[in-house]
């Protein structure tokens, strides 16, 4: 995350952000290759298990804090580590236009 640019319209993901996937992103299981893919215009994203777990919780209702808390509990991991990781992941995706709020 660079954080340097704050163009109008750029989503800055924070703890209280309620992230969601825009309708044109399709999270699908790619059975042939045994992985998950996010399909976007002219792009295929291959999220790992952690990313898939995060993205499946991005429903536009839960906040980032709530998502991190839920994952911290599920994976018995420190919540601050998870939060930092989730913020980093979602900001990266938001900067590509793949996460909205």
């Amino acid at each position, binding site marked *: 995350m660079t954080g340097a640019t704050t163009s109008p319209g*750029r989503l800055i993901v924070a703890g209280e952000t309620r992230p969601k996937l825009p309708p*044109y992103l399709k999270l699908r299981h*790619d*059975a*042939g290759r045994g992985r998950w893919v996010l*399909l976007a*215009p002219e792009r*295929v994203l291959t999220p790992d298990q952690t990313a898939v777990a995060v993205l499946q919780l991005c429903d536009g209702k839960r906040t980032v804090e709530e998502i991190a808390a839920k994952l911290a509990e599920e994976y018995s991991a420190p919540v601050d580590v998870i939060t930092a990781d989730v913020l980093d992941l979602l900001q990266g995706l938001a900067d590509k*236009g793949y996460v909205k709020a």
Partner: protein
Amino acid sequence: MTEEFKSNGHCETVSVDDEPTAGVVGSKDMTAELCALAPIGMLAELTHRCPLQCGYCSNPIELERVNNELTTEEWCSVMRQAGEMGILQVHLSGGEPTARKDLEDIVSAATEAGLYSNLITAAVTLKRDRLEDLVKRGLDHVQISFQDVDAENAERIGAYPGATQKKLDVARWVVEMGLPLTVNAPIHRQNIHNVGRYIDLALKLGAQRLEIAHVQYYGWAFLNRAALIPTYEQTIQSIDLVENARERLKGVLTIDMVVPDYYAKRPKPCMGGWGKGFMNITPAGKVLPCHAAESIPELHFDNVRDRTLLDIWMNSDAFNAFRGTDWMKEPCRSCAFKEIDFGGCRCQAMAMTADPRNTDPACALSPYHGEMVALAKTEAAKPATAFVYRNPRNAADAMKTEQEPLVPAE
């Protein structure tokens, strides 16, 4: 092609045209993890009919006739086979894909096959109710070409009066219907001054993505190169402008850029490697490793009417001709970059050196490189020639003239 690859430790991104797959080597074992070897993207050129006549069209000079086009059922079968073999995205292109009256059925078949569908259209003949129907059938994304930002110049380039307003209307509908919109900007010397205004246009339309696609010199564009090729300085300026805008518009607009390679030092990894991640179906059902591959006369292309898509991908002579690195000559064969750029583009090697096994002359190591750069600079310095518009009459004329290959420097 984009250089974008990695976003974050948890999520890799690749552009559809050049994902390196597991590296098919022409295995005869059809049972071995076939899907893992399939391409990610497929370009379906549904027809070569088009209301526009752009002189840089990516279709071959020899345009396919309507009565040779695949039937509805044949296209639907192609979509089903594509989904089954593990292809993820299909680009419905042409010509103008909406010239097919059965586009609706083809989109439905793509949706049923689980394919992410992209409609690549000139948008001048697309009506609102038809677009609505396509969206209902599961169309995922629409890409609209704009020949220039200035209407008059755009309509001269495409030879279609009134095109701009129609395109703007369709772009608005796409956004209203909640679909992602890509603005496609084919860039050349006659509109390169407007790259910045293309970015403004894409923002104004609410596009999700902008494609600054410098014209690539194959087929029609090769024929019209002296009318199209920008100077080195113009090219660099346009690249700088896009790179600045990318940073400024992060998270707002995705800008993909295809750069011209005549001024490059290293060749592009064309199609991410021959037969590695991409296939193209012509209107008549021929399956090509790239849309310009028919310009290589020694190749024979199999047809979906005769063989399955998977069989063609895995075993056809055309796909295996330049797969991997065994076919390479020097200087590619001993080059440290041979697995990175795969020797560049076979079609460009063919067009400029008359041998598709030669190093792409865009590479500084090619003995033809100096001549190629000199040619580009000379043409760009002269006034633009008149367009040879893309239409069947000009196609017939163009096929009568032989192209002269370059002569390498000593």
